[in-house]
């Protein structure tokens, strides 16, 4: 989507478009809550939350990278 937008309007910053659309799914709060749980002593809860956050970040970056790769190939 952002690759198409940059092709239509070349003055757009592609990086900011991606960040703005992806911002809702980023797990910043769950990383913070995971560390907070570890400080309170709930180790299993913190481990599950941190693992979920790391997986979510990896999935988001992989999806964006794949679609950017496809977009760069037909630009």
């Amino acid at each position, binding site marked *: 989507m952002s690759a198409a937008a940059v092709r239509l309007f070349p003055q757009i910053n592609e990086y900011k478009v991606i960040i703005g659309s992806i911002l809702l799914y*980023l797990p910043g709060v769950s*990383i*913070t809550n*995971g560390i*907070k749980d570890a400080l309170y002593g709930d180790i299993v809860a913190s481990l599950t939350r941190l693992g979920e956050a790391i997986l979510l970040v*990896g999935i988001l970056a992989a999806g964006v*990278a794949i679609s950017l790769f496809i977009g760069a190939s037909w630009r």
Partner: protein
Amino acid sequence: MIRTVLLAFIGSVTSGLLFNIKGRKLIFAGVSGLVGSAVYTLLNQFTEYSIFSIFIGAIAVGLYSETAARLLKSPSTVFSIPGILPLVPGITAYEMAQFIMNNEPDAATGKLIETVEGAGAIAFGIMIVTAVFRFISRVKKMKQMETANKQE
């Protein structure tokens, strides 16, 4: 700076909508984000050390949310979760994964350390304030019990 603070207010109000906060509490949750973002940007202009300003901002958000929780009789996480949303390092986590995708491990390590620092600073700031408030309420409860025992 005023624009940043107002945008943080709007962001906190909309994230409060996502968490099903209703009525008057929604505006208080937005003010919580405003307080955190204002303290963070003000300190970041002076110190140029962003982790410290994140820490102080989290302490301000914790103080505000505990006070508002006492005033409005609701849990303090209602105000602290939308309040720390302008401060949490979500974008740096995404940038870390993006650097890994681009095969730049050094920059990815820097972003990883930045993410963990930011999340740890926010967690410590919120937790210090919560611990202080719990200690104060526990002392108050013990004093009340002592007076009740004396009256009996």
